[in-house]
């Protein structure tokens, strides 16, 4: 059975991540896995500036480095156990039933790729351990979103049970997929849906939005829609504020890295300003 996987780290995001993940697992009726990664690359490296090597240097160096890693990893493993244990308790308090905990050594994005087959929905904090006090986006989010081909819920530091949802629709394949998923997924059962298209209200645009709306209505959702011209990021932000929206669904990083290098990424900008959870679809 596929799991909702929540990425837990030592930042204050862990709380909200656990809560949103528990909520999702309950809606989707899937098991919940709390996941922590021990990234050894982030450990500082010891520098010995003597620059000499003698008889047996290689062997003793290997032993020395292995011992150092062993010590650090033991501490990190124990720390990870505590983090996961605390998160598990919180999830069970919220009523999660089937909760698993897992730890892996290595890079976060790589470790998640290894779990991808078992993944229904990934829940991750919008801000990382180093960036959680600022507006800056967690620096691993983009890599993860680009590598994982499952839906990802990026959540803010404060939990609020979602009661309504907004879909950022642009008529592209990804957003049509979003409509289908929104319509059928048990995650959004009974929630009113607001479909937003940012851009000029041409006949084509109106037609494609209306098609999406009628598709959603087929599945008995309460749907409203609007087409508003303006800058994508600030328009979405404004509408969210006006309508008190609890969750945003959008396609993510549909452009190549090269284009992003010059143009910047809309996804990253929307994410970094978002006060509400964002469900990213690839």
């Amino acid at each position, binding site marked *: 059975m596929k799991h909702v996987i929540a990425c837990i780290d030592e930042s204050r995001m862990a709380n909200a991540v656990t809560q949103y993940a528990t909520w999702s697992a309950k809606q989707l009726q899937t098991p919940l896995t709390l996941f922590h990664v021990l990234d050894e690359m982030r450990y500082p*490296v010891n520098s010995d500036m003597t*620059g000499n*090597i003698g008889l047996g240097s290689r062997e003793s160096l290997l032993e020395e480095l292995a011992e150092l890693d062993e010590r650090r990893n033991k501490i990190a493993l124990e720390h990870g156990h505590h983090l996961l244990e605390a998160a598990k308790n919180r999830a069970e308090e919220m009523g999660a039933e089937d909760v698993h905990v897992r730890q892996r050594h290595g890079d976060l*994005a790589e470790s998640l790729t290894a779990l991808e087959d078992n993944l229904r929905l990934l829940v991750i904090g919008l801000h990382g351990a180093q960036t959680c006090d600022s507006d800056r986006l967690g620096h691993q989010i983009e890599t993860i979103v680009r590598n994982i081909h499952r839906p990802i819920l990026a959540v803010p530091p404060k939990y609020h049970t979602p009661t309504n949802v907004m879909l950022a629709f642009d008529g592209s394949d990804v957003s049509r997929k979003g409509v289908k998923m929104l319509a059928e997924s048990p995650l959004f059962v009974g929630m009113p849906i607001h479909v937003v298209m940012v851009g000029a209200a041409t006949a084509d645009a109106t037609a494609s939005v209306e098609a999406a709306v009628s598709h959603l209505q087929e599945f008995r959702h309460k749907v409203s829609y609007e087409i508003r011209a303006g800058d994508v990021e600030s328009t979405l932000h404004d509408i969210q504020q006006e309508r008190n929206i609890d969750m945003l669904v959008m396609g993510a990083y549909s452009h190549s890295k090269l284009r992003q290098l010059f143009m910047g990424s809309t996804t990253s900008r929307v994410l970094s300003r978002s006060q509400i959870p964002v469900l990213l679809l690839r």
Partner: protein
Amino acid sequence: MWKSIQANWFSNLRGDVLSGLVVALALIPEAIAFSIIAGVDPKIGLYASFAIAVIISFTGGRPGMISAATGAMALLMVTLVKEHGLQYLLAATLLTGVLQIVAGYLKLGELMRFVSRSVVTGFVNALAILIFMAQLPELTNVTWHVYVMTLAGLGIIYGFPYIPVIGRLLPSPLICILSLTVIAIYFGIDVRTVGDMGELPDTLPVFLWPDVPLNFETLAIIFPYSLGLAIVGMLESLMTATIVDDLTDTSSDRNRECKGQGIANIGSGLLGGMAGCAMIGQSIINVKSGGRTRLSTFIAGTFLLILILFLDEWLKQIPMAALVAVMIMVSIGTFSWDSIRNLKQHPLSTNIVMLATVAVVVATHNLALGVFVGVLLASVFFANKVGHYMAVTSSLDEASFCRTYKVAGQVFFSSSEKFIAAFDFKEGVDKIVIDLSEAHFWDITAVNALDRVVIKFRREGAKVDVIGLNKASATIVDRFGEHNQSDTKDLIGH
């Protein structure tokens, strides 16, 4: 993309920059010493070290490994330089690069799995011995000053780190070079210096195409050398990569390393440098000094260039004795101390492979030959060992005068003699059953041995039934595939 650039280059900024500086100092002696042995000016080796280190920091497959002009490669160039001159060396360097790129695309890096641990150990030890032997010309027919200076240099290298506080701040090889240079100048000691050994670089390296005729004759001259250089270069690099992998608990991309080294060698050849490869000693120094990412290799190369360009007047004054001391340190550090201690515990065959590899390399000065002999010996020993995993048992049914032979295990060239000898042809029985259902026939020699057994029994007048043959001969396949799980069980069971 930014993430991987960040991880590969800037994730360990302080350690990489410092270790790059330390390693650059250890590159100079090797580049100078082996340029002299190859018979070219020190600037050829220094330009090569700069070009290779900088290029491979981008193209290589093993972050944190140091590649530059090396002794193993220089030793292969000696006759080429002597007989045909520098321009042919540059052309051979380009061809070496091309061959290595081809090898990378053909994924020949995977062939490293045939090189056993004992061959690797033998290679490493042989390399250490070669580096040491290369210092001997500097230590023969010289005045006593040189011996004293070399010993003092070694004393500084190994003793300086024990001095409190400053001992661990400054690289001791640097202190060794600096203090010996100062002493030699101050007391006016007349010893050989780097300046006596040939031309040093005074400008940035310039792009130049080797001045050789582009015809088949040139190719015939350089090809054998390029092939040897390409093989030795890849061997040393891939072995060094394994060592760095172990030390840093990370993995490397072998085929990318082959291609990367090819590109680096082409770059070196075009900038007037000789071919090079990874260096075991310097890579260990790099890891020890805290270098982990591509940046450390890049800094080492760049800093080397800065040193040789701005300090060339000072470089000339360095007494050779100081460099000899540093190279002796590299040689000692490269040598695998464990291999001596383990001689007693390891099986004789393993020791023979290791020692044979060392002996062949020291005798021929060609690391590729040593590895070839080592791999060959290791394979023969392996075939011999696996040949033991074959047993024939038999039982006699006295009522019908029928003897059943049951063959189990591996039948191939090495065990076929034993296979034939296991049958008693002189026994007078009416019927012979040979049950092969638990045997594995690996090659034509095995099939041929079975044919001979059947014919011999027939001559004695017995009727021969071979059962289970289909299953047994089905294993005559090129690959030890997934065809039968019991293969491995058989091996373990014996």
